[in-house]
């Protein structure tokens, strides 16, 4: 069976959890023939994974740089003004009734993009005129800063780049599997419309939620931001409604998916998994009471809170150590500098050490008596389930699917709260019996629920049902994410 897998900014061009997951799925299903459609920013990006043998082709979809050279040549048909107007109208109208019309317009645009140059139509003076006039008609009564021509040009330009995936020939297969919502579903939608391919959408984080967070503080003026996010909201809602099956990486994400109109019966949560062979149970603990952290050095991991929490731990338990394993991605080096400076300011520069990338990640879990996760946003973090598989208990922030992963085998604390995080760490560091009991329970839980084989079996099942055109059997009812809280939630008392 052939599967077209669509990614955006991840596999096989980037590192990180989503890419690891793609690699696991493809390698774990050698019986399937995978065709990759990878959306990347520019042509400069390079493949950083060695592609398994069952990847038979890859299309690199570029969002930036000059529009498809050669591809657009010979396509003289102009984008109909009516279509352009309807697109602008559906994007400026935020009412729920317009959603089906957006789907129709996008489908027409997708068909047009195979005949004429969509980029030329969207980057035209006509398009700028349409948007600026539509804005003027709607703006008079709002009393907000009026959109300028620069806003109109910028908004249309963003839309043009966002819709570039539609100008590539759809990749034919038995199933389209978008490994993200948003721009990543554009090639899956085009393939569905052209070849009738069933569509599967997997989300590790919530795409739309990340879009909101990214655009909160600029660089765009409000009218551009509203237009762009309006497009993203419509697109994500379309991705959910057109998908035959949606597989979030955790139950927590369901809330957003259902909020945006996903049919609950089409949602099936599939947790990430690790290969237990790579993470055998750890024997023994470091002599010094050590806390271990593993991940990318990135603001989203909120290392400031971790360092502040550790300074409180250190105050109570001067022999305690914090070891951080991982390196900043390109462009995030200043964040590492900031964290180092903060550690020095807090007087823990000697006992909280940044150790960089580690060859065998299991050694990082071995280095700590407990593992801690301080992120402000997560999907279903690998570091957590890896640590659990090794038999380490953890203190982790209550974000994304963390409570679902940890269950009652560790401590879950609210994000951005150094005091509670410190309290959790001290509790576990001081009580060896509790720590060992939770560590053993964590390993049992991980082996039962979060193995890579489990995830692969589920996708094997989903693929065969979708490929055969049969509806997926109804999934067992999933627990509400909120009910899966950790054993000790010190902040519960405070709420």
């Amino acid at each position: 069976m052939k599967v077209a897998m669509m990614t955006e900014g991840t596999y096989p061009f980037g590192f990180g959890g989503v890419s690891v997951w793609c690699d696991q799925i493809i390698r774990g299903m050698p019986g399937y023939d995978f065709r990759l459609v990878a959306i990347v920013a520019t042509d400069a990006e390079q493949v950083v994974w060695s592609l398994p043998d069952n990847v038979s082709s890859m299309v690199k979809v570029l969002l930036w740089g000059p529009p498809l050279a050669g591809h657009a040549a010979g396509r003289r048909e102009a984008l109909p003004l009516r279509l352009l107007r309807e697109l602008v109208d559906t994007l400026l109208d935020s009412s729920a009734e317009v959603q089906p019309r957006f789907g129709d317009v996008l489908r027409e645009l997708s068909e047009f993009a195979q005949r004429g140059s969509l980029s030329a139509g969207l980057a035209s003076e006509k398009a700028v005129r349409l948007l600026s006039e539509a804005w003027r008609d709607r703006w008079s009564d709002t009393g907000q800063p009026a959109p300028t021509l620069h806003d109109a040009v910028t908004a249309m330009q963003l839309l043009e780049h966002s819709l570039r995936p539609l100008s590539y020939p759809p990749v034919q297969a038995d199933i389209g599997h978008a490994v993200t919502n948003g721009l990543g579903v554009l090639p899956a939608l085009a393939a569905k419309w052209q070849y009738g391919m069933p569509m599967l959408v997997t989300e590790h984080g919530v795409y739309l939620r990340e879009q909101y967070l990214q655009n909160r503080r600029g660089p765009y003026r409000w009218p551009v931001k509203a237009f762009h996010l309006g497009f993203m909201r419509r697109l994500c809602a379309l991705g959910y409604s057109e998908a035959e099956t949606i597989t979030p990486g955790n139950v927590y994400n369901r809330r957003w998916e259902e909020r945006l109109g996903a049919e609950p019966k089409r949602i099936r949560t599939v947790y990430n998994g690790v290969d237990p062979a790579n993470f055998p149970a750890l024997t023994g603990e470091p002599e010094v009471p050590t806390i271990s952290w593993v991940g990318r050095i990135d603001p989203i991991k909120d290392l400031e809170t971790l360092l502040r929490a550790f300074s409180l731990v250190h105050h109570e338990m001067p022999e305690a150590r914090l070891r951080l394993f991982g390196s900043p991605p390109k462009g995030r080096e200043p964040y590492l500098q900031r964290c180092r400076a903060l550690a020095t300011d807090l007087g823990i520069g000697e006992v909280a050490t940044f150790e960089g990338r580690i060859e065998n990640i299991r050694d990082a879990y071995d280095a700590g008596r407990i593992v801690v996760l301080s992120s402000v946003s997560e999907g279903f973090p690998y570091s957590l389930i890896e640590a659990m598989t090794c038999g380490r208990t953890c203190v982790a922030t209550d974000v994304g699917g963390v409570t679902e992963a940890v269950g009652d085998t560790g401590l879950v604390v609210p994000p951005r709260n150094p005091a509670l995080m410190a309290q959790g760490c001290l509790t576990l560091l001081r009580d060896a019996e509790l720590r060992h009991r939770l560590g053993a329970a964590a390993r049992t839980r991980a082996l039962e629920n979060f193995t890579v084989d489990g995830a692969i079996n589920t996708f094997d099942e989903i693929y065969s049902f979708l490929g055969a055109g049969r509806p997926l059997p109804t999934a067992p009812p999933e627990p509400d994410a909120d009910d899966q809280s950790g054993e000790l939630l010190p902040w519960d008392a405070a709420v």
Partner: protein
Amino acid sequence: MSAPTMPVRREPPPHPSGNGAGPEVATAAPAEDPRPRDVEELCEQFVLVCESAVDPLEISSALEFDGLSDQAVRKRYGVSDVFALAEEMYRRVPRRPAEPEPLPDPWRVSKLRPALHGLLYGLPTVCFPAAAGLLAGRGVLSVLIVALLTSWALSQALAYLGYVRLGRGDAPQAARLLLVGMAAGTVGVVLAMAVTALVAHVHIPALVFGVGLGAYMLGATVLMVLGAERLLLVVLAPGVLGSAVFLVLGRPPQLEYAVWGALAATPLLALGLAAGRAAREAGLLGRGGRRARTGLSPAKLLVAADLRGALPSAGFGLVAAGLLVLPVAVGLPAHQGTNTGALLASLPLALSMGAAEWMLIWFRRRTQKLLRATQELRVFSIRARLVLFAALSQYLAAAMLLAVAVIAAATETRLIYPHWTLLPQIAVYMALGGAMFNALLLQAFGSRTFPLVACAVALAVEVACRGLGVPAQLVVCTELLVVLAGYAAFVLGKAVRHAC
């Protein structure tokens, strides 16, 4: 989760409750959630988020990002979930979006750079009269024309390829490409000279001069694309200083070999320094190189699409060189290498390219400001055209000032004895300069075919009417200026052209 594919800033916002500020006190604080218990207070805390939100979902994402869960919201505020709380907050707080922080102005560059460029374009002019001894004999004119056309075309194409690759954020690969391109280009110039030698019987010194000219152009292009203009001053120093001293001393024959040596040093330095610089940027020199450290396989050096894209640049280089050379070459007996009067008239044009660069930047900044201050397309297009007219006028004024200065200096040093017959030649170059300014402007705004075609037609007409001399050139160049300026006014009056 995923690497950003859309260009947005990705710093998480500061913590609204102000955890980030204040003195660090290392005490185990009571485990109390600092969030307010009242929705109104929560609105105050999140006021910036609420005022700038495009819809309630944006507030939901901010609340969740701050650590609020459905469970906490139910207990604390008695609403069903985070989404319901966000809708309530969206209702309570009216929209009053804050203007984003202004981005750094990419066109804010020092005036020194364009001025330096102008100087760098103009300085080599001095070398031609000094090399007169090399440029004697049959076929010299063909050598010079072929050398100039080839090296202009190749260096324009090379610059295009380098800038395209740099624009993709791949500096090491861009440097590698420039290095390979420079080597290939030099081979190309040598081949062109060899073919010329076969067709026309030429003396070896003239051929060597032609190769040197091409090598200098290619090396200079690499250094400019890599932003190493200052090294170019080092490159030019021996040739230009040597020539200047030689000319000022009245071309003493005993210094002839010395000045030829100095002239030879310039292209050799250009190739050497450019190669060194490019190799360093490519990571081929020094500590292992960036690429080697990341262990990634490099992207393809050259793709067909880029090569196709470079064709208009090469064509424009060819045509522009033709337009510049023609007035110098026309009306000369075939054995004579240079026409001092016309050469001198071309010097202000070369210098004025610095002014052209500066006015191009000025035009960008003005129109960007205009785009941000205008709501109507009609108003924008009228004003943008006025800005264009002002830019062109300022450029022409600067070019004329330079012409006057050059003639005054040349008269003072007795290089020429000014005569009114020089005036039409200067007028030709002024018109040509204005035309080139418009062509550069159009190219900078992504319109490459029209200027190429217009210039090619003008060149063809000039070649066809070469018997008619300067008056024909003046008519053609003026028409070219008018056509290009008119087209620029048409194209650059569109708002969409100013997207960047």
